[in-house]
């Protein structure tokens, strides 16, 4: 039984690593200074983590406005769907 459980954990563990990797890579790349991004070598975590990419994103596009728009659409759609669906059901 213990051997079987180990196989289940192995299967799920490998799958989870594969599933999480793109999200982890997004975070890791976000923290890398641009030269490290283009280095062409595999680097799991930035050697010199930096927040400079976040500053660029915040100053070069109206990020807060975009956040607000997404939030507004999400809330409006949820409320409208709940209202019409509750009545219909």
């Amino acid at each position: 039984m213990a051997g079987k459980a180990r196989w289940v954990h192995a299967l799920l563990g490998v799958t989870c690593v594969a599933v999480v990797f793109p999200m982890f890579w997004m975070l890791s790349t976000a923290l890398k200074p641009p030269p490290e991004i283009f280095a062409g070598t595999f680097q799991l975590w930035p050697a010199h983590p930096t927040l400079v990419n976040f500053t660029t994103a915040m100053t070069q596009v109206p990020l807060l406005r975009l956040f607000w728009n997404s939030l507004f659409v999400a809330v409006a759609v949820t409320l409208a769907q709940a209202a019409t669906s509750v009545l219909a059901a």
Partner: protein
Amino acid sequence: MPGRRWRAAAIGYLYLAPAAALTAVFVYWPLVASATLSFYDWNLVSPTWAAVGFANYRELAHNRAFWLALVNTAKAAAALTALTVLVPLLLAVAVLRVTGWWRNVYRVVLFSPTVISMAIACAVWLWMFHPLHGVLNTLLRYAGIQGPRWLSSGSSAIWAIIIVTVWKTFGFNFVIYIAGLLAIPAEMYEAGRVDGASERQLFRHITLPLLAPTTLFVFLTTFILSPQNLFVPTQILTQGGPNEASNNLGYLVYQLGFEYFRVGYASAAATVIFLLFLGLTAVQFYFAERRVHYGR
């Protein structure tokens, strides 16, 4: 009491009205309008529509991009349906064999891509697919393998889109399978064990039949949503290229209508696709209804 029954029915329709009116205006009306438009030539701005009969349909039948898109959509729908029905089932069965807090860790992790917006998921993968700086080809290079030019090669572009779509959508079916598996009464398994059934027999004769309604739901929604789920990845990753190699029906309609401004032609394509999927869904329902046991 015909008056009271009429009143009850009227109140029922009144409750139904908001949803029904919105559906009529935003779903059925566009369907009819699009079918009508398919017999006209219109460029989205001209004040007049030119009636052209079946010319749009005839041109569509001779369009190489349309047939390529049809083949790609079939390929993608088959791959998506197979992968996002079988893999989540396997994972759900595996996760429920785990006890304690690891079960919740696995559930959260496996569901997490579903929460991300498709556009963001595509942007991340776009970067990972980069032939020189992308992490996939960097890792393959370490393994001594020359990685494919994922998005710019005709043979791999559609598979890159399928990979992203599977990654982003399988978590939803996984959660539905977990709910379906947990709804199977434990007494069934106990009775099976008392009768000396093996684990494999329990799975084959209890789990699979009682899970059939869940599987039907997952199968149908995955199949029907697959062309829609392809649109965003196609738009962000390849724009249907290279040379139409990763195009699909939903994206083709968008291209015809809003890049080439041939709205009548696009409507003809949309109408063909609608009828095709309506027919396929009806066939699936017909066969599934006979096989699925709802336990009543």
